């Protein structure tokens, strides 16, 4: 079925620092961009608290969503069109799914999901399927079209090739966020030759494969991913901000449950606190709203909430030491917990172990009992070979795990020797090893 209005009379373009231009010719895409649910993504940062480490990282999920759309558009219109295995009637479905794949992200998603046990992917599904402007636009294509878009994003759509374009080990989502996050953070290691990768992508029945001649470009992409995860996404300072943010949410929830009277009533949080968030409440949340509360809560009577909010707003972050949760270190942690209590510092909020595996992660590894579809190279003789069997470089980092735990604490409290001097000294001795 065609979309009413089909194509725009003139192509629209958005200037973009990563792809130069985002090209929009299809009216459905133009209409989706104009919906209030999609515009909301302008108010949600792509990298959450990373801006407190890399000051350039202020870009939004709106930018990234347009970027993913543009990559898919190029793959379909410039590379796949007319090739065997590619069903061109899936074109608009792919473009819509690419554009909308992150629609359900909330402000500071990682912390919110952790504290309130939410899943942004459920909200993506709800925004597409329930009574929203996005749903109304998609339904103009046919009543079952929103369901199809939701299935592609949820990876349960029957055509696996379509799913793999949006979500696989080498997909448009990752290609865009690596390049975009590298650009905005200002780091040099996220870059790779995307143009080359796009040119060597080929459709197969179940997934996208890469021509053997493009292997080195893919190697570069995989190394970029590896570097970005450890240099940017898992940066310990970003994690410190994330720890404080998480603790603010925990504290606010706990206060609410205990019947505390907030000076600034957390009306936007009520449904989160009681674990009953409906879509309309969720869509009202964005970073401006959350930061308003943090600003206001600096005036609260509760000392812990006040302090944590002030730390976040003024970037007075926690310090950290390396921590490995062996039994020996666990004993030290227990001792520290007792000493913190003795020093009058609540360890529930001020002594925090954070594991990097709690943050976004997905550096390359080949399929394990087939769970993850590996990247396949299309050999000159038409055979498919799994990437790490051809690439020495990829083989070297495949399956090599790095885990990282850190113990976070407020050193300013501990160095304030005006009270509990001996206890604090003892704490510092343990922390400094």
């Amino acid at each position, binding site marked *: 079925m065609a979309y009413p209005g089909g194509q725009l009379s003139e192509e629209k373009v958005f200037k973009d620092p990563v792809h130069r231009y985002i090209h929009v010719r299809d009216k459905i895409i133009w209409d989706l961009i104009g919906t209030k649910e999609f515009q909301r993504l302008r108010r949600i940062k792509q990298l959450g608290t990373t801006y407190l480490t890399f000051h350039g990282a202020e870009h939004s999920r709106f930018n990234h969503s347009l970027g993913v759309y543009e990559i898919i558009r190029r793959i379909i219109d410039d590379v796949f069109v007319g090739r065997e295995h590619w069903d061109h009637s899936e074109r608009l479905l792919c473009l819509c799914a690419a554009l909308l794949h992150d629609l359900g992200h909330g402000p500071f998603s990682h912390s919110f999901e952790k504290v309130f046990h939410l899943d942004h992917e459920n909200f993506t599904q709800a925004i597409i399927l329930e009574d929203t402007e996005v749903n109304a636009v998609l339904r103009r294509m046919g009543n079952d079209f929103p369901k199809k878009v939701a299935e592609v994003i949820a*990876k*349960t759509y029957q055509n696996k090739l379509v799913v793999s374009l949006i979500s696989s080990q080498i997909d448009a989502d990752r290609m865009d966020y690596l390049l975009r996050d590298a650009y905005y953070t200002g780091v040099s290691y996220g870059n790779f030759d995307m143009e080359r990768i796009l040119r060597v992508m080929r459709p197969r029945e179940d997934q996208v494969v890469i021509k053997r001649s493009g292997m080195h470009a893919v190697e570069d992409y995989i190394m970029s991913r590896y570097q970005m995860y450890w240099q940017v996404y898992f940066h310990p300072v970003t994690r410190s901000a994330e720890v404080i943010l998480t603790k603010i949410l925990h504290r606010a929830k706990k206060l609410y449950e205990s019947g505390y009277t907030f000076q600034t009533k957390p009306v936007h949080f009520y449904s989160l606190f009681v674990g009953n968030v409906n879509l309309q409440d969720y869509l009202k949340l964005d970073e401006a709203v959350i930061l308003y509360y943090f600003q206001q809560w600096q005036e609260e009577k509760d000392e812990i909430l006040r302090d944590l909010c002030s730390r976040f707003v003024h970037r007075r972050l926690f310090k950290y030491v390396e921590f*490995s949760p062996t039994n020996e270190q666990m004993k030290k942690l227990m001792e520290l917990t007792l000493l913190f209590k003795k020093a009058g510092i609540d360890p529930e909020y001020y002594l925090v172990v954070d594991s990097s*595996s709690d943050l976004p*992660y997905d550096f390359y590894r080949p399929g394990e009992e*087939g*769970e993850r579809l590996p990247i396949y190279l299309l050999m000159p003789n038409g055979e498919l070979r799994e990437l790490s069997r051809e690439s020495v470089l990829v083989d070297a980092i495949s399956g090599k795990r790095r885990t990282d735990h850190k113990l976070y604490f407020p050193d300013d409290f501990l160095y304030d020797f005006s009270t509990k001097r001996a206890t604090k000294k003892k704490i510092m001795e343990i922390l400094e090893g």
Partner: protein
Amino acid sequence: MLTEHAKIMKAFMAAGEIVGRKKLQKMIYIAKKLQFPFYEKFDFHFYGPYSEELTWRIEELCNLGFLNEVKEKKGGYVQYRYTLTEAGEQFLSHYDIELPHLQDCLQDMNGQHSRFLELVSTVLYFEHLSKEEVKEKVFSLKSKQRYTEEEFEEAYAYIDKLRGYVHSRS
């Protein structure tokens, strides 16, 4: 602190040895769907619901010596066996985690084939749909597994059985 790690170890303590990563993934997913408080994020992969986060957690626990992983070559693929180590039991002693009836559920699941658990977890993944729609999903997305109508019905009966364990909690 590290409570999520401890809960996974608790699952091993309840289930005993678990053979196969696929089985392990499906057991934890099913337990999560039975409202046990596992917070690893799952999405739909080749063999049904799968959690990258759980994979990492297991690897971490192995690296720390809290879980023992044994690799076995099985024809065309590698199979993994997992057990809780003594150090793991000691670590777990720092936590006071009560998960009533988890043992009943996990031990029962551990006695099932991973192929069947894959079906059960897929049914649970789509449980918001009507039974007919779930069937359509299972038969289209899992066409290579060639599940029968009978197995499909067994999956529903099995879910009821597991929920029976949980409801006997109250």
